[in-house]
């Protein structure tokens, strides 16, 4: 099939943009079976690679650290964190927003790109969705543990009770409960549903009874019937259509936590778009951070091609610019509004006690992505990887700046303060990464990390290659007139 090559670049490189030729989404000589082999092969591996074990050992011990910290917190009190009055929210909320943000790329890739018919998504969407779920799991922990009386946290849910009390639906925190809850559920459904046919593939290749039963159970007896495929496609389309506004709403609602308050630096109308852009930004950064090593480790360069990486780099560039714009807009508004509190808050961000955090943020989020302007740099996997890691750092600091610097100095100078995280704060945060990677490693080892069925669907072989048919794929001819039963 290499005849469709438009130039002389190595056969693995499909980043060229020649309008005359449709760049291939899967490179190398792969037929359907080869794809199945590659992907299922990872799950069926007789022995796990060393690298995996090393990574798992580290991440799972970090997870233990997380649980230890939570235990200490619950038994001792929120005081083990560095919080105070005025800064009532610190790491916990920063981490929450950070993780929720990361959890955006997945659904975005699967849903929005799906609706936009961006077929290149197929190689990475499963992966990204998985990442979304795990990020949301990490995110979900923090609002849970940051309340003073965790054992009463269930009061946030509208459960009938002997007190005849209900939660207060005017509170953005309650909106959060619903938004994040819905998002987690929908992402999970989306992810699982997409996986059903691939689980069936693993089932059908099973060489041991246990594996057959496990994957057989998970794939719910999928028998790739076309009548099923029909409804499956529809359900998938609908979920995508639902997830798209959802993914936008989630970070908007998270931003309401701040925007609805009256704190200078929080109370601003640009937060929703600003947060969503940031979320996508950080989400893609995290996808890239994870996908580059994974694709090396399991030799998936032919399925997750350089073009995929490049596209993501471009998206990061775009969203990075949006974020940068948001930063400058905030400053403009602070000055233009003539509100002395607002003005001071931003002056204080850039030059006050927390200036260091602010400038880390700007460097990582605005300066670093500029390298993606250059094709050479963005196509250099190493540079791309380093940049995306830096962007993750920057996005964490963005949340830190928003949450902490605004609170530390608000209306009354008499109650200004300074927030210092404690070791517990830091370890809890690090621990959450442990949890994230633990889940992630389990995923790439035991579940199909690439949507085989979808990838096959976008391969040339999936379409009619009979001469004389226009378009590609769709079968015309003697079916045309036939009336439908």
């Amino acid at each position, binding site marked *: 099939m290499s005849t469709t090559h438009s130039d002389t670049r190595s056969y693995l490189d499909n980043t060229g943009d020649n309008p005359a030729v449709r760049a291939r989404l899967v490179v190398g000589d792969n037929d*359907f*079976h080869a794809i*199945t082999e590659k992907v299922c092969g990872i799950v069926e591996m007789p022995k796990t690679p060393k690298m995996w074990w090393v990574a798992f050992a580290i991440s799972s011990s970090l997870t233990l650290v997380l649980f230890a910290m939570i235990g200490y917190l619950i038994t001792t009190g929120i005081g083990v964190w560095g919080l105070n009055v005025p800064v009532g929210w610190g790491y916990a909320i920063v981490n929450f927003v950070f993780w929720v943000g990361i959890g955006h790329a997945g659904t975005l890739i699967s849903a929005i790109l799906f609706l936009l018919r961006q077929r290149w998504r197929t190689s990475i969407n499963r992966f990204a969705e998985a990442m979304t779920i795990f990020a949301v799991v990490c995110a979900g922990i923090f609002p849970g543990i940051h309340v003073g009386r965790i054992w009463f946290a269930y009061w946030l849910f*509208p459960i009938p009770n002997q007190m*005849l009390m*209900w*939660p*207060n*639906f*005017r509170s953005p925190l*309650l*909106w959060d409960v*619903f938004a994040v*809850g*819905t998002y987690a*559920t*929908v992402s999970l*459904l989306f992810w699982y*549903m997409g996986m059903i*046919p691939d689980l*069936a*593939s693993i089932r*059908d*290749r099973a060489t041991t009874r246990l594996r057959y039963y496990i994957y057989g159970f998970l794939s*719910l*007896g999928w*028998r*790739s*019937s*076309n009548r099923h*495929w*029909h*409804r*499956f*496609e*529809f*359900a998938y389309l*609908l*979920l995508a259509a*639902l997830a798209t*506004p*959802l993914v936008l*709403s989630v970070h908007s609602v998270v931003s*309401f936590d701040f925007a609805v308050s009256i704190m200078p630096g929080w109370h601003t109308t640009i937060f929703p778009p600003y947060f969503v852009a940031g979320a996508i930004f950080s989400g893609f950064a995290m996808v890239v951070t994870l996908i580059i090593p994974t694709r090396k480790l399991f030799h998936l360069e032919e399925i997750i091609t350089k073009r995929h990486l490049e596209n993501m780099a471009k998206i990061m560039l775009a969203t990075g610019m949006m974020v940068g714009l948001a930063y400058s807009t905030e400053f403009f508004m602070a000055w233009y509004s003539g509100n002395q509190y607002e003005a001071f808050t931003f002056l204080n961000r850039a030059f006050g006690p927390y200036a260091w955090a602010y400038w880390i943020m700007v460097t990582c989020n605005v300066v670093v992505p500029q390298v993606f302007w250059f094709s050479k740099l963005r196509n250099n996997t190493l540079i791309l990887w380093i940049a995306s890691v830096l962007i993750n750092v920057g996005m964490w600091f963005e949340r830190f700046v928003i949450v902490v610097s605004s609170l530390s100095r608000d209306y009354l100078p008499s109650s200004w303060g300074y927030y210092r995280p404690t070791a517990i704060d830091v370890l809890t945060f690090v621990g959450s990464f442990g949890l994230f990677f633990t889940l992630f490693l389990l995923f790439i080892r035991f579940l199909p990390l690439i949507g085989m*069925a*979808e990838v*096959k*669907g976008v391969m040339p072989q*999936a*379409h*009619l*290659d009979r001469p004389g048919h226009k378009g590609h*794929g*769709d*079968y015309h001819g*003697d*079916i045309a007139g*036939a009336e*439908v*039963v």
Partner: protein
Amino acid sequence: MENQTMTAGDETVLYGYLAEFDKVDDLLVGAATVRDAGYTKWDAHTPFVIHGLDAAMGVKKTILPYVVFGAGLTGTTAGILLQWWTNAIDYPYLISGKPLFSLPANIPVAFETTILFAAISALVGMLALNGLPRLYHPLFRSRAFKRATDDHFFISIEADDPLFDADATRELLESISGRKVEEVEDVV
């Protein structure tokens, strides 16, 4: 039958015929032929979605969208009613001098419940309409069929299709698949 497991004493009946293809084109043509032959209890099995196959098979458009839409509406109403009843009717209290019930503050939650209900109904509806989960199916008794999730394509015609005729149907299938048709049996 040589490639089917037979445990002694198993009473079996014919479930239907299974024809195998390895080219998308043949499958599409075949499907159209079977459709035009007027069969109703038959199906095609493919490892991935094949454009045009629905048309070739004459699959009716699913009612799923209406289910999901209904669920979504339910979600919205539930969301609004919940907030209105709890905060304005059952235990009204004065918060920041705000009105007891004001739509703007209730939009986020109502929106989320809408999506939640709709999304769940989408998956559950899809499974229900497909009659899944169904871990056991006679087709799974065929070894060849295992490639239906890998790289091969199949057409199956059930024995209890009104038009089913042991020989005629076999001929039809062999003519379109150009290879031997497999008889799939079911245990009772």
